[in-house]
């Protein structure tokens, strides 16, 4: 066994590094798709304006809710270390809408509290496992200033605001301005420009118009 002086030199160099810097999050290898979608959720926060009353208290965190069988796992955890406009981000998970309702069978006040918790989210990601409850979930938060995000066909038709779509091996999204307006949210034009599809609201006739975009 030949041990060269270089080994000692490298070891010395390596262990002389002692900077104290916030941790580097170990990027665990979860589904690539949900890593990308988590990053999209973070970006959405920067291009949506919430009602003043929703963000009045600057000390309150921004809440990203996830309802259903969480596909993100650990890959969404880095958001906790990325404040937006000085506000921390908190991830709140809800098991399912059925479980929220079941809790209310015996305790109406408790059920109301649970549903209220949904409404306190700034962003609510509705997992694919909740596809059969989409309309109910969207209805339950429609007046609460919540950016509802889904990944199901027809999500915008039931009142959802942003829907993830897949095209050419990449993640894209569609937006319903109509649903955003009903929720009291303002979506900035940059986000609208990048959407694959934008559902407008015709102010005169109330007919929803759909604007399809070419691929980015």
């Amino acid at each position, binding site marked *: 066994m030949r041990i060269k002086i270089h080994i000692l030199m*490298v070891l010395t160099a390596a*262990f002389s590094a002692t*900077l*104290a810097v916030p941790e580097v999050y170990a990027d665990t290898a979860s589904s690539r*798709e949900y890593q990308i979608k988590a990053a999209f959720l973070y970006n959405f926060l920067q291009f949506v304006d919430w009602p003043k009353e929703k963000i009045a208290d600057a000390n309150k965190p921004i809440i990203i809710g996830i309802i259903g069988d969480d596909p993100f796992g650990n890959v969404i955890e880095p958001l906790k270390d990325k404040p937006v406009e000085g506000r921390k981000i908190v991830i709140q998970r809800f098991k399912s809408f059925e479980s929220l309702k079941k809790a209310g069978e015996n305790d109406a006040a408790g059920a109301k509290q649970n549903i209220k918790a949904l409404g306190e989210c700034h962003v609510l990601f509705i997992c*694919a496992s909740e596809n059969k409850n989409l309309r109910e979930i969207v209805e339950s938060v429609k007046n609460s200033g919540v950016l509802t995000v889904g990944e199901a066909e027809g999500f915008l038709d039931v009142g959802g605001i942003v829907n993830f779509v897949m095209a050419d091996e990449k993640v894209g999204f569609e937006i319903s301005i109509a649903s955003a307006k009903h929720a009291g949210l303002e979506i900035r034009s940059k986000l609208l420009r990048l959407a694959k599809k934008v559902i407008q609201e015709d102010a005169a006739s109330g007919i929803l118009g759909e604007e399809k975009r070419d*691929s980015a």
Partner: protein
Amino acid sequence: MDTKKHSLLQKLSLIAIFIGLWCSGDVLSAEQQNADKDKDLFAMSIEQLMEVPVTTSGSLTSTSQRKIPAATTTITREDIQHSGARNLDELLDIYVPNFEYIRHPWEFQHAGLRGIIADRDPKYLLLVNGRVMNEIAHQGALSERDLPMLTDIHHVEVIRGPGSALYGPGAISMVINIVTDSVKTFEGAEVTARLGGVEEYYAGEFKYGKKFKDDSGIFLYGGTNDYLGADTEDAPYVSGRQFSSNPTIRLDWPLAPFPPEVSRTPVPQNHDKKIFPTRRDGEAFNDQLKNKLYGEYTNGGLDIWARYTRGGEYCPIDMTWNGGAQEDSVQIGYQQATGYIGYTQDVSKTLTVDYSFSYDMTDFATVTDSATGVLGTAEREEKYYSKVIAKWVPNEHHSIAFGGEWQHDEFGLRSSMWPHSPAIASVFVDACSTHPLYNPTGRLPRWSTDMYSLLGEYQWTINDQWTTFVGGRLDDHSMTNQKMFSPRAAVVYMPTEKDTFKVMYSKSVRTPAAEDTKLANMQTGDKAQPEKLSAYELRYERQQTKKLLLAGSLFYHDQDIVTAASGVAPVGNLKSWGAELEAIYRTQKTTFTLSHGFTKQIRFQTPAGANPSVGQYISASAFGYGNDLENWSNHVTKLTARHDLTDKWSVDGSLRVYWGFPGQKDYAKYNRDQAIIPFDWSNWLSYGCYDSTYDRVFGVGMLLNLGAQYKPSKNLTVRLDGYNLLGLVDHTLNKRLIGYSGGSPANYRAEAPAFGVSVTYKF
């Protein structure tokens, strides 16, 4: 070691010291660090995120990870780092279920999957960024595998199973796709220094990414390495013929007297490591540096990259063959240069067309006698390749991909590694004048081949639960006697959010090595018959909880095998089956992966009237011995673990267990039973023997690696790795069987217990 390499080592060491000293001071303030851009996904803009591909190599049409109609393994950059792997073979061996590699008596080591392995590496495709890198004339997948520089790799995708329907001939067992970093995944600069002790090596790498606009930029990478390997004391080479408790067994060799005391060495409990001095394990070809260079320019849909690699190794041969000449070996070396241009055109919202053109030059040489420098092979091949694929997605239910490829290959070119020699190949030269392939000139002719291909796939998403895939590929090769058709069909059923069922059928094909097809064509006028494999697989995946993923596969193979030694026609038909179980458990701080692969021969049948001893090293069952694959461990178990102790410290480890080689034992028994016949030059089987009590070589092999990682800052990572640590207790646990032994049974090389240190700094 010469002065040039010595100064390189000094430079590497100085770089490492500089990095350490720089980081240990208060050079970078917290504000500066916070201002540094986080180059992960969360730092990307929406425009950038929309350009990040989601899917892997497992389908031609776009689909989600869950629906990919194949068993796949993805090894991320973080997985690579935590494995401490010193080369691609080791990396795949650690992570890919039912994958293993074995040594060869005189060639580069061979990798295989699910029992499909050969005495070269032509039965799987090795890709870089989707471009096939296999050397076609002789070896198969050769480049990239031995290089201890891995930081240019963003991730590695492995399609476990036949892949010719997507990638063409050669993807019999698997497809390995190395996806490199690009400007989309890396910005800034990073340096890495690595060194290994016991198995000695020194490596330095540098990479740089610069974005010009949102969708354009360059990525550059350079790496070099001096690989000295491990000496025989730490990595002994053991031949079964060294041991005999029976004084009547002859170990004849007409060329040189065989030490009589060695021929009667008692079977040891733990072999004597000093029996045969030989070349160091892993020692670099021709004592030269191994290098890797890569550069990529991206601008919107345009992608241009160039890659150069140089590597190779000494391959120690069985000393009992040649009269015990010390330190004898074969060397195999290569260099490869590849240029690629690709462009994606968005014709409409539903239609995109991908165009690509590439050029590849691969130099390959074997030095058959290291003492005299006699060349066995020295040749260069050039490959021109173009492809057009259209992808049409009319709506969310249907997706269609179709296109064509053209490949033109030139062979018999003079090797630039050995410019003084004409192009020669060992199959055209044989030391034995009575051998049917004897060619006194030894020179390769110059020739070319063409292949025209059509391919397509249709994906039908029936509803949220059902998706089907149908596709195939038709290849027309100028040197095969039939067109090659590789169909694929799959049904994916997702009844719940947790469960996924996949039923898959695929057929893959392979053309024999270009040297073999040319030689046969010269001698008989015949064209080659392709190798074919049909595979049926049932796979089940369950996301049991947020943290736990379970998966299992059941597969059946029906293969008409063409081996290197059998020339250009099948040597027999092999039917086999197997099963794989996988579990992946992840929390925020801990990750476990566990897999077990089982593969079993059902039947190996040689053609009626054929001599089963010619060209087949598949199974001794052809001679009536057992019913197992010669060069495969029926059971392969792999475990990896990783845990973050604190924000800065993490520990990890891996364990690979090969539960014995019954097929190799059967073949060795067969060889031993032939050893009583008088020695006959033309019959390799006549000089294979070993003592029947020495069967430890066919037992369990276990390779344990442990590592510790320290990340004092976002920019700096330091690792310490220990490799093959069980060998500190018992060397035989670290054994790598030397397969394709033919007349040399019961040989192995024990891989050295070793350590490594690496330092990476990102600017």
